[in-house]
Every structure is written in C-alpha cells, then in structure tokens.
C-alpha cells in the first residue's frame, strides 16, 4: 500500500514538472528515441527518415529531436522522461523493448502523447503502431519462388518472435504457390544487426545449396556473400540499392513517414487518439523497392500485381486453406488469419520442416 502512495506522489510531482505551456504560435515538439544509431542503415535509419519526412512536411510548425543508441530498460525510461521534460508533446519510441518504460513514463505525463512501435500495450495517451511486413514478404516470396533454380530458399531470421515468423510463413506460402518444389532453410542469428554473423549465416545457407536469400536482419553482409556465390537476395528495412541490380533484385522497405505525418497532423488538429495501427502496403508503410532488371518481366508483373492486390485489400497473404506444420488445420478454405492470431504467431505453416527454437 505504502509503495503505491509514494508512487502516486511521485507522479503528481512529475506532472507539475511537465506542464507543457504551449502558446499558439510555438512549434509542436516531437521527440524520438532510437534503439540503434541513426547510421545503422536499417531499422533506426528508416525511423529517422520518417522523422525527416515530418520536418519536410510541416516545416516550422514542428520541431523534432531524437536520442539515439538508447539501451532498452532503465536508460530508456530516463531518455523518455528527458524528452517529455524538454517539452515534447508527441514522443515516438521505436523499439519493442521500450514498451514497459513507455507505459511507465506515460503514466507520469498524462498530457504527453506516446507512440510505441511494435508493442502491444496501449493506454489513454499511448498508441502502438507496427507495419504488416508479412505483406511485403508475400511479394518477395513470389519473386524468390520464381527465381530459385535449386528450389532452396534461405531465410536469415533475427529472433524467433511473431513478427519474424509471420515473414517466414508468408514468404514460404507465396514461394511455394508459384513453385511447388520450393524448400525453405532457416537460420537464426539471434541479433538484429551483426554483420559478421549474418555473413556466416548466409554462407551456411549457400553451402546448403540455397540460391535465393531472404533476411530479417539489417546489414548488407548477406547480400555481399550472395553476390560472391552468384546467388540473389533482397534489401531489408532500407533499399540497399548499392547492391542493385544483382544480387539485390528487390527490397522490402519500412517507410514510417505516412504514419508519422498522419499522427503529427492529428496532434496539430487536436484529434490525436490512442489506438493500435497495423498498416501495410496499402497505406505505404511497407514498400517494395524497385524490382531490378535481373528479374524476368513476367515475374515482375506478377509480383507487382500481387503487391497491388494486397494494397487494395483484395487479397490477404494468409488466406486458407492453410495447415500448420504439424498437419492440423489452421485456416479453412477462403478464411483469412485474424490479427490476434498473427500477432502471437509461433508456428510454421505446413511444408516448412524446421522447428522454431524454443
């Protein structure tokens, strides 16, 4: 009991501190905390592109700041509080591990709005947002299924979490749809960014006879190795255009700017509300990078048609009939996966022979 009262007093003090006295003509202050450096060329880089898009869109009406390379945990809570105290009224926290710190800080600053990427906890002043990367995976899975000659596709996974497993399943389903002989080989590197290890993972896959590599890690190392072995791959998070036209034949780009611009606009209009956004190709959050000339014209056309169908909401990448890897029925004919199912996905679909590490 006593601890609770203490906490309550603490939050009252914090509120008094925050007091965002905002005059009409002052710019809206928007803060970001990043888990990596802006120069990571992947995840954080793309979020920072979103921040720059806000500045380009709103000019003098906004003022953005960021703190980069913030470790998840205690330091994140302090960084978030510093941003709130500095008068930021809208704060984007761009890593899953910032979830509990965001909730804690949001309680202390009820007048500040928080946006947390890839998490699942919301509050009155905490919204969550994520992108349906699996939609993009369906498109590059289609390209991969056509392009493979050895019928073995490799997938470099970061961590066995729902987001990554969705991507593996989605790309496998669509690769196999266009090429029934496709097999998928999966390697987990337990890191979002470890160039040396990603290179080794790519080499291990190449040695297994894989000739198309997909990656859910942020460095260009797998592309570099794929090129040396004459295989192909896809840009991840950012376009990785330096490796086009081959080995990088296309890419799956995180583009956060539509969402960021929408939310800042809502703040300026005074219409900001909490919620959970999970947008994909249709909203422009998941972008398929230019499909290079290494891909035959008909494959490109098919991939773009699939992209447009998903974007228009005519097709859901997880549409039944689909079975789980253990043979049990997951989705009946014509049934589509619910978001709740996807967000806690911890199984492979039928046809993938590997086990998800537990």
């Amino acid at each position: 009991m006593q601890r609770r009262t203490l906490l309550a007093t603490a939050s009252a003090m914090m509120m008094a501190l925050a007091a965002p006295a905002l005059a009409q003509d002052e710019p809206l202050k928007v803060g970001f905390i990043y888990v990596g450096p802006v120069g990571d060329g992947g995840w954080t880089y793309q979020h920072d592109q979103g921040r720059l898009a806000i500045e380009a869109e709103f000019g003098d009406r906004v003022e953005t700041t960021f703190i980069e390379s913030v470790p998840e945990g205690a330091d994140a809570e302090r960084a978030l509080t510093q941003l709130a105290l500095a008068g930021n009224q809208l704060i984007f926290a761009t890593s899953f591990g910032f979830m509990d710190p965001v909730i804690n800080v949001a309680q202390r600053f009820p007048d500040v709005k928080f946006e947390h990427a890839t998490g699942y906890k919301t509050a009155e002043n905490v919204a969550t947002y994520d992108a349906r990367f699996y939609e993009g995976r369906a498109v590059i899975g289609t390209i991969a299924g056509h392009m493979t000659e050895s019928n073995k596709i490799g997938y470099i996974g970061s961590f066995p979490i729902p987001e990554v497993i969705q991507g593996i399943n989605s790309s496998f389903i669509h690769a196999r749809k266009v090429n029934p002989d496709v097999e998928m080989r999966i390697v987990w590197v337990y890191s979002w960014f470890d160039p040396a290890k990603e290179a080794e993972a790519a080499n291990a896959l190449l040695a297994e006879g894989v000739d198309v590599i997909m990656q859910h890690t942020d460095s260009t190392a797998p592309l570099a190795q794929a090129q040396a072995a004459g295989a192909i791959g896809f840009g991840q998070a950012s376009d990785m255009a330096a490796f086009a036209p081959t080995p990088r034949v296309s890419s799956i780009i995180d583009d956060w700017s539509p969402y960021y611009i929408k939310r800042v606009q809502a703040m300026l209009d005074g219409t900001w509300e909490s919620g959970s956004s999970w947008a994909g190709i249709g909203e422009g959050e998941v972008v398929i990078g230019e499909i290079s000339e290494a891909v035959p014209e008909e494959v490109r056309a098919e991939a773009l048609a699939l992209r447009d169908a998903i974007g228009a909401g005519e097709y859901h990448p997880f549409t039944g009939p689909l079975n789980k890897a253990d043979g049990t029925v997951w989705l009946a004919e014509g049934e589509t996966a619910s978001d709740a199912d996807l967000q806690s996905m911890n199984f492979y679909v039928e046809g993938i022979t590997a086990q998800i590490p537990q």
Partner: protein
Amino acid sequence: MIQLVPRQSASNTWQIATPLLAVLATMITGGLLFAIMGHNPVAAIRTIFWDPLFGMASSYSRPQLLVKAAPLILIASGLAIGFRAGIWNIGAEGQYIMGAITGAAVALALYPLEAWWLFPAMVAAGLAGGWAWGMIPALLRNWFGASEILVSLMLVYVAQRIAAWMAFGPMRNPQGMGFPGSRNLQQYPSASNPELIAGTGAHWGVVAAAFAVLATWFLMSRHIRGFHVRAAGTAPRAARFAGVRPAVLVAFCLGLSGALAGAAGLFEVAGPAGQITDRIGVGYGFTAIIVAFLGRLHPVGILLAGLLLALTYIGGELAQLTMGLPAASVQVFQGMLLFFLLGFDLLTRYQIRRRITA
C-alpha cells in the same frame, strides 16, 4: 632530462587537483571537438556538466544521477578492495548478470505470491549468485593457480549467454506474446525495487551503494582485514609474515566484489531495468572498473567518480536532446575524459623532476 620519482604516499594536493585538471583538459579538447563539428563549444560543455545539476529539468536529472551512479559505485567499491590487494576481478559484468538472474529467479518462481519477505529473499539470492560467480575464479586460482583476470573475464561471456538463454527459454514471460524477456518485476509489487522517497531517485540499490561506501571505508581504514588487504597489495612477502593467508584473501576479495556486483544486478533488474532480457548486462561491470581507478581505489573517490561518470551519461543525453549532438561524439568525449583522468593520475603517484645531467 625529465625523471619520474615515485611519491612515498600519494600527494594530497594533487589528489584533488588532478581530477580537476583532467576535467578542465577534457572541456578544452572536447570543446574544440564540438567546435570543429559546428556546435557551440561553451553551450555543449555547459549542457553536459552543468544542466543535469542546475539546468531546467535538474529536479528530475539530479535524482537520476543517483540511479545511474548507484550500480557503478556499488560494484566499484567491491572491486577496489581486491585491486588494492592485487587481486584483479575484471568479471564484475558477469557477476552482475548472474546476480540479476538468480535474484529474479526467486521472484519468477514464486510469482504471483505477495509476501514481505520476498524482496529480502531476492536480495539474498542476488548476493549469492554474484558471490558464487566470483568464487569460481577465486577457487580456480587457489587450487590451480589459474589467473583470476582471465577466468573472471571468460565468465562474463558465459554469463551473457546464460542471460540470453534465460530470456528466450526458462524465464520467458508466458504472457509476453512470444517476445523474449521475463515478466516485468516493476509490475510485481512484492518483488519490485521502487523509488523509496518520491523525487529522490533513491531505490534500495542507492541505499546499498551508500552503505557500501561507508562499509568499505570502515573495512579499509579500521578493520584488520583491510590492513591485510593493503599489506598484500604493497608488500606481499611481508604480508605473509604478518599472518595474511593469500588463499583466504583471494576468496574474500573475489567473493565480496562478486556479491556486491550481484546485488547491483538484482537491484537493477527489480528496479530500473525491470526484466531479464538478453541485454541485461549493459556494461556497468566494465565501467565500474574505470570508476574504481578514477576514484583511486578509495571509497570517497569512487563515490565522486561514479557520480561524475553518471553526469556525463545524463549530460550527454541532454546534449543530444537539446543541441542535436550525435551520440558518437558524446562517446568520444567520454573517452577523452577517461584518458585525461587516467593520464593525469600520474601526478598523484609520481613527482616530476628535472634530472641534472653531468
């Protein structure tokens, strides 16, 4: 020709003057660096050193100094005793991680039991975990003569992998939507380590750090063990005649520093960090080694050094936030500070004389 002559005892004047000189030198060179990068050097230095203490939001950042400094001081106090005796525990990072894991294990095993004794039991488990991890190099040195420097360092890597294993396996939060990481102990009242007095930042870890400073000061200046430690460090042979048993001293120093590091880990995981993740070790154990040396292995010095480092962390964040300095330049600045402090330390231990050459 310039000659260095060791001082009989460290000079009092220089004890105080050198850290000030080092900070001044850092301010000058760091200011130059910031100026070259196109920032206002005076404002940058003020933001890093002054604003966290007396700036706009200092009522928040001052307590945060304690939160950031507490684990550093707690760990460094223990390490310094060993360092004085010539026993080199550089694996505090591993002991910190193991203390966090064993302490959290108690809470996670008993979840959702609410009992007054739970938190004390966790502290005991954290102490024991760190102690046990520190005793491994102690015993291997006593039995086989294996270097404790190297064994304790190797055990850091092992502990990091145990943490990853725990976060993905045995300790994974069953309600965590498939994400790695344990339950958040902040949301488990009996197990949490909250702020004790609102607005002070002081949690039990801060109390423990303060106690550690006093206790180690008492130990080193008033207790026979402290005499043994100093004797072993300055004159190992003579110490044997004075009744010092080296094996006992090795076990004492490594066990004590391990236990304190373990406690620091527990206070952190139950408080500011909240959960066991694969990145629970954020480098406090290594930074504490630097703190111990900056503090000249003296309890009061360690207290000040811990606070100084915490200041540069928090000030560095503020500089990112308010001036847009990249995190990397702040890191360079911190590196300079360490270099200057370590280098200038020469003046306390040696006299510089001009040698008269015939």
